[in-house]
C-alpha cells in the first residue's frame, strides 16, 4: 500500500537520504530504527511533504500508486490528516496551548470538510473516547493534561479520519515506562481495529521488538537491513544491526569492589513544599520526599528508579546538599549534608545530568569548564592545567580538546566532558541523574563502559538515577524503587528484577519494553 522506492534527499546539496526503500501493507506495523541523524524523521517528513526549505527529494513514495513526492501542495494538504496521519515525539508542545483539545481534534474533520461543526464535535468526542480519554472533557486545554494524555489527544487528531497510514515519530520517547506501554498498546489496537498501516519510528530496539511486524534499520541515510522483526533481531545479517543489538543490552565489565563502609547515607529524610495557594490560604503541603532512608557504600553502584514526579529529582537535590530537608538527616563521609555544608564536603559529591550542554557556558573553553569546580577549594591549584588534561585523558578525550568550545563536540563527547568536570575534585560519590538517557545506544554503551572503568580506578560510589530499567539492571549492584516520595522496594538488583516483591515494581518491570532475543 505504501511503497517507497529509491528515496533520496538532499538539503541544500548535502545528501541526507540515499536510496531508501521499504513497503508497508494495510494492518502492518513497520519499525524504522536507527540512531539520531540516521534519517528516520526525514523519511517520514518526505512522505508527509513537510520537508524543511531547501530539501530536494528524488525517487518514489507511493500511497496506493500515487507518488507523494510528485503531488502538488494542494493535493498533499488534502492527503495529510485524511489519508496519512502523523504524531510526534514531544506531546508537551505538539498541541496548541490556547485552544481546547476538542477543538484541535475536531479541526482535522473540519479542515477536510468531512463534517459540519456539530458532527465534527460528536466524532471528536467519540475519537477521544476511543483513545482512552472518555473521562476528559472536550473543553480542556492541553496544559491541564499529563504527557500521556496529550499524546492520546495527538493520536485522536491523527486518526479521527481513519487514515490509511499513521506515522508515529518516537511517540513514547518522552513518556514514562507505564505510560509508554499504554500508548504502544493503544497504537497496536488502532492498527488491528482500523486496518491502517503504522510506521513506527524509534531508536529503541526493545519497543520495535514488541510492536513491529517488520523492521527497517537505518544508518547515515541508508536502510542497511530490513525484514521480518524476529528474524532481523535474532539473526541480523548486517554488522551495524548486530552492533545496535549488542549495545542495547550492553553489560559493562565491573569489578566487584563494594565495601561495607557507608560513604553517603540518609535517614528518614522528608522534603516538603508548601501547598498550592487557594485564595488567602494554602492547600495541604506536598511531601515530595517522604521518609526516605538509604545507604551508599564505598565503591558501590546504587540505582534509583521511578516515574516522573515520584520525587527522584527532589531527593537528588537534597542529597547534593542544594536544598534543606524538613526532617531526617543526610551524612556524607560522616559529616552532615545541607545547603551550608563546608566546600570540601561539597567537593566530595558531584553530579552529571542528562543534557550537559545546558550547564556549559558556550563561550568558555573546555579547560575552563572542567576546571570550574576548583573554586570549591578557593584557588585553582598551580598544576590545574595538568590535572584537567589528565582527567580529559581519563574520560577518553585528548589534551588538545582543552582549547575547544563545547559546541565542537558530539553529545557523547559532551557527556565525557561533564564527567571529567564532575571528577576533577576527586569526589567520593558521583550522582548520575539520567546521565545516559539522551544518548544513542552505541554511545550509551561506551559511556557505561567508561563509568565502570572510572569506578574501579577512582574508587567511586555511584548513585544511578534513571527511568530506564534495562540500564539500571546492567550497571547497578543494588536498586531502590521510588513511588510518590517513598522507597517502596529496595534490594540486590538481580533479586529485585527477577523476583519483585512490591506491586509497583512488578508493574514497572512488566511495562518496560524488552528486547526478546531468546528464540521462541
Amino acid at each position, binding site marked *: 500500500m505504501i511503497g517507497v522506492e529509491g528515496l533520496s534527499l538532499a538539503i541544500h546539496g548535502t545528501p541526507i537520504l540515499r536510496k531508501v526503500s521499504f513497503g508497508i501493507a494495510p494492518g502492518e506495523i513497520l519499525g524504522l530504527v536507527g540512531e539520531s541523524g540516521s534519517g528516520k524523521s526525514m523519511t517520514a517528513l518526505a512522505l*508527509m511533504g*513537510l520537508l524543511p*526549505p531547501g530539501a530536494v527529494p528524488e525517487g518514489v513514495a507511493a500511497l496506493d500508486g500515487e507518488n507523494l513526492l510528485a503531488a502538488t*501542495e*494542494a493535493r498533499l*494538504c*488534502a*492527503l*495529510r*490528516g*485524511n489519508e496519512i*496521519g*502523523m*504524531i*510526534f515525539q*514531544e506531546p508537551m*508542545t*505538539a*498541541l*496548541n*496551548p*490556547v*485552544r481546547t483539545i476538542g477543538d484541535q481534534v475536531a*479541526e*482535522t474533520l473540519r*479542515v*477536510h470538510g468531512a463534517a459540519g461543526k456539530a458532527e465534527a464535535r460528536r466524532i471528536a468526542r467519540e475519537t477521544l473516547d476511543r483513545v482512552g480519554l472518555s473521562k476528559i472533557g472536550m473543553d480542556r*486545554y492541553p*496544559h491541564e493534561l499529563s504527557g500521556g494524555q496529550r499524546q492520546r489527544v*495527538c493520536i485522536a*487528531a*491523527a486518526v479521527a479520519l481513519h487514515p490509511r497510514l499513521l506515522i508515529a515519530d518516537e511517540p513514547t520517547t518522552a513518556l514514562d515506562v507505564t505510560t509508554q506501554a499504554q500508548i504502544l498498546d493503544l497504537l497496536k489496537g488502532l492498527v488491528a481495529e482500523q486496518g491502517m498501516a503504522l510506521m513506527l519510528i524509534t531508536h529503541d530496539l526493545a519497543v520495535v521488538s514488541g510492536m513491529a511486524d517488520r523492521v527497517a534499520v537505518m544508518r547515515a541515510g541508508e536502510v542497511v537491513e530490513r525484514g521480518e522483526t524476529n528474524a532481523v533481531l535474532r539473526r541480523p545479517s548486517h554488522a551495524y544491526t548486530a552492533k545496535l543489538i549488542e549495545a542495547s543490552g550492553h553489560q559493562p565489565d565491573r569489578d566487584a569492589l563494594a565495601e561495607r563502609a557507608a560513604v553517603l547515607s540518609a535517614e528518614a529524610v522528608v522534603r516538603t513544599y508548601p501547598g498550592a*495557594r487557594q*485564595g488567602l490560604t494554602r492547600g495541604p503541603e506536598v511531601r515530595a520526599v517522604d521518609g526516605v532512608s538509604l545507604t551508599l557504600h564505598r565503591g558501590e553502584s546504587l540505582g534509583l528508579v521511578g516515574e516522573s514526579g515520584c520525587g527522584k529529582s527532589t531527593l537528588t537535590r537534597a542529597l547534593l546538599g542544594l536544598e534543606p530537608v524538613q526532617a531526617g538527616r543526610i551524612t556524607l563521609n560522616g559529616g552532615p549534608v545541607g545547603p551550608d555544608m563546608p566546600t570540601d564536603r561539597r567537593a566530595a559529591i558531584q553530579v552529571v545530568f542528562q543534557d550537559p550542554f545546558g550547564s556549559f557556558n558556550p563561550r568558555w573553553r573546555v579547560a575552563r569548564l572542567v576546571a570550574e569546580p576548583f573554586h570549591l577549594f578557593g584557588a585553582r591549584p598551580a598544576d590545574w592545567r595538568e590535572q584537567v588534561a589528565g582527567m580529559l585523558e581519563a574520560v577518553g578525550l585528548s589534551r588538545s580538546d582543552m582549547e575547544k568550545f563545547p559546541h565542537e563536540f558530539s553529545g557523547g563527547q559532551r557527556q565525557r566532558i561533564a564527567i571529567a568536570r564532575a571528577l576533577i575534585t576527586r569526589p567520593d560519590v558521583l550522582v548520575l541523574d539520567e546521565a545516559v538517557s539522551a544518548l544513542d545506544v552505541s554511545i550509551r554503551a561506551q559511556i557505561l563502559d567508561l563509568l565502570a572503568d572510572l569506578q574501579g580506578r577512582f574508587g567511586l560510589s555511584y548513585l544511578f538515577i534513571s527511568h530506564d530499567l534495562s540500564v539500571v539492571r546492567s550497571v547497578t549492584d543494588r536498586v531502590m524503587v521510588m513511588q510518590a516520595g517513598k522507597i517502596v522496594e529496595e534490594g540486590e538488583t538481580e533479586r529485585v528484577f527477577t523476583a519483585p516483591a512490591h506491586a509497583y515494581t512488578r508493574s514497572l518491570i512488566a511495562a518496560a519494553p524488552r528486547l526478546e532475543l531468546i528464540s521462541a
Partner: protein
Amino acid sequence: MLRYLLGRFTSLGLSLLVASLVIFAVIEVIPGDPAAFMLGLNATDETVANLRAELGLDGSVVSRYFDWIGGMLTGDFGTSYTYRVPVAELVVDRMWVSLPLALYALILSTVVAFPLGVIAASMRGTAAEVGIMGLTQLGLAVPNFWFGMLLVLVFAVSLQWVSAGGFAGWDDPWAAIVSLTLPAISLAVPQAAILARVMRSALVETLGQDYIRTARAKGLTRRQAVLRHALRNALIPVLTILALQFSFLLAGSIVIENVFFLPGIGRLLFQGITQRDLIVVESVTMLLVVAVIAITFLADIAYVIADPRLRRR
C-alpha cells in the same frame, strides 16, 4: 482567575498611590513660585503672599497632599491659576481632542501593522519580507514631527486638501475627523513600524513551534496554520506593545499637537509648565498616570483571554 484579577487590582491601587506621591513631591521641589510668576516682576511681597493664600499654597505639605488627593477623588481638580477655570473643565475639553486622536492613530497603526507583520513572517526570505522590513526601518528612523510637517507641506500647502492645523470641533464630525487625519498619520507611522516588527518576530517564533507542525500534519495549509494557530499565540507580546503604545499616544502627543496646533492634553500640559500653572500640571499628569495604569490593567485582562494557561493563576 478571580485571584489573578484581585492581584492585578491591588497592584493597580498601589501604583496609583506611589505615582501620586511622586508627582506631588516633584511639583513641590521644582523651583518657581506660581503666585510670583502670575503677578510679574513688580509685585510686592505682600500681594504675592495674598495670592499664595488665595491659591491655597500656604498650608502644610501633608494637608495640601490630602486636599489634592481628596479633591481628585471627588472630581474637584482645583482651579487653574492662569485660566481661572476649574481644571476638570479644561481637561474634559482637551480630552475630546486627545482621546480620539490617540484612538485614531492606534487603529491606523494596527490596521497597517498586523497585515505587514503577518506577511513578513509567513514569507520569510522573500523580497516581500525584505521590503516590509526596510519600510519599517524607515518608519522608525523618521521623526514623527518632521513627517507631520512633510504631510502639511504636501497635503495642506501644495494640494490644499486639508487645512494645515487647528481643530474644527465635533459639531461637524466629518470636519473633526479630517482635521485629525494628518496628525493621526504622523503619530501612527513609527508606532506601526514597531508593531509590525514585533508582530513579525512573535509570529516567526510561533511558526517554529511543534504545534504548527502538528496542524500541518492534520492537513491545514500554511495560511490556515498561521491564521488559526500561530496568530493567537503571537498576540501576547503584541498586546504588551499595543498597551504601551496607547499610553504613549495619550500622553506623548505633545510635539504633534504643537505641530498641528491641536488643543489637546499635550498642549495643555505644555502650556501649564511654561506658565507655572502647577495645579494643571499636577492634575493632568496624575490623570495620564491613571489612564496608563488602567490601560495596563486592561492589557492584563486581555492576556488572560488570549492565553488560557494564565487562567489558573
